[in-house]
């Protein structure tokens, strides 16, 4: 996972994932440019190059819509988690399709003039002072630039090099790219199309992507509000908080405990032991508490990164570490010291009675 960088660490699931994404893209483009023209109600057919530009452009937009839905869908239903696993490949393929759209447009609309074609892209329409006729291409260029940056930095090498917080901050700009593409379509193609279909599809995309993010955000905010209460009978120096009952943690799984300061802690039970780790995977900030114990390690639900529950260290040869937390038992209540230990600090697991049969 992290000791050495291969261009792409292939495995069967990634290959299947990519095949499905490519199949969807190829099906879309072939249908658009080969089959659909036979059913068009036109006096003479649309120019092939324009048809291809339309096909690649709309394909990239639709694929970006799907990509942006994956994140919030995983918050709503864990079965969507596998879509997240290889989302970056989905993104890179989408970027390549958007790039193909741009090259088609440049080669038909901006070539063959005395002006350099790339200069022509910027110089041909300068009506920046009006809404109708605004150079909508600018939005497309901006979005494509962002997509290219994201695709170029999508590899785990950049994630490590830039550190997850910075990498995440850069990659959140995919939302800006989406907004720019919506503007690009709204002020361009949408204005020219006689059929309302494109407007309906763009509208649905906006409603779906925005709606899912708002709903998922609301759920997360509610979780954050539901912070662990402090345990009144704190006898020692630690500000213990109540993480939950022993019974609320199924064997081999974790629960997520939101703290006052906005952090979240994952409390895991494995056999008769309980351990607590920061909920944030060191790889891509995945929610560890929603993972499972596999081979004795906490396994991130996003990309399967492993951490030993007692010290938060990835097993050798891997080097990732997350913070650990102290736990203690008060009857059947699990108490948590909300002050994180340095990542990788060993904490003796708390022993509980083995899980009852009904829980399995």
């Amino acid at each position: 996972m992290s000791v050495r960088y291969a261009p792409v660490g292939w495995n069967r699931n990634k290959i299947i994932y990519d095949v499905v994404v490519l199949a969807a893209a190829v099906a879309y483009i072939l249908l658009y440019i080969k089959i659909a023209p036979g059913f068009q109600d036109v006096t003479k057919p649309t120019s092939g190059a324009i048809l291809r530009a339309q096909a690649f452009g709309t394909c990239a937009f639709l694929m970006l819509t799907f990509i942006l839905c994956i994140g919030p869908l995983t918050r709503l239903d864990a079965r969507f988690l596998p879509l997240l696993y290889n989302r970056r490949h989905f993104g890179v393929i989408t970027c390549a399709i958007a790039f193909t759209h741009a090259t088609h447009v440049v080669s038909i609309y901006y070539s063959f003039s005395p002006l350099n074609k790339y200069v022509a892209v910027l110089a041909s329409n300068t009506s920046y002072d009006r809404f109708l006729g605004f150079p909508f291409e600018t939005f497309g260029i901006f979005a494509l630039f962002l997509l290219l940056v994201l695709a170029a930095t999508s590899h785990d090498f950049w994630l490590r090099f830039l550190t997850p917080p910075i990498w995440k901050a850069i990659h959140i700009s995919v939302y800006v790219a989406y907004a720019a593409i919506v503007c690009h379509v709204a002020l361009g193609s949408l204005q020219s199309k006689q059929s309302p279909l494109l407007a309906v599809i763009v509208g649905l995309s906006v409603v779906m992507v925005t709606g899912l993010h708002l709903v998922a955000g609301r759920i997360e905010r509610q979780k954050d509000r539901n912070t662990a209460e402090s345990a009144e009978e704190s006898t020692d120096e630690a500000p213990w908080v109540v993480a939950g009952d022993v019974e609320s943690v199924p064997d081999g799984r974790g629960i997520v405990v939101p703290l006052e300061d906005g952090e979240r802690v994952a409390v895991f039970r494995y056999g008769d032991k309980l351990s607590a780790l920061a909920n944030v995977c060191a790889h891509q900030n995945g929610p560890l508490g929603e993972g499972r114990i596999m081979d004795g390690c906490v396994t991130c639900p996003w990309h399967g990164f492993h951490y030993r529950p007692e010290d938060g260290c990835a097993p050798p040869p891997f080097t990732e570490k997350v913070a650990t937390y102290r736990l203690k038992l008060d009857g059947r209540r699990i108490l948590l010291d909300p002050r994180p230990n340095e990542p990788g600090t060993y904490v003796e697991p708390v022993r509980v009675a083995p899980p009852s049969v009904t829980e399995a």
Partner: protein
Amino acid sequence: MQRRHRTTHAYMWKVLAIFLPAMLIAALAIRQHGPTEKSAVQIEKPAAETEAPAATTDE
């Protein structure tokens, strides 16, 4: 840090939830539907025909 990330997400989508529909509605509002039923209007007859009344509609 984790919360900051969530807050940024939530903030961005609140902004986009207003901006994107507004953009789409504005774009649809400015969409031109040609007033094709309007005829061409002859404002002035050619000089040669002289003294013709102005603003005669052609057909």
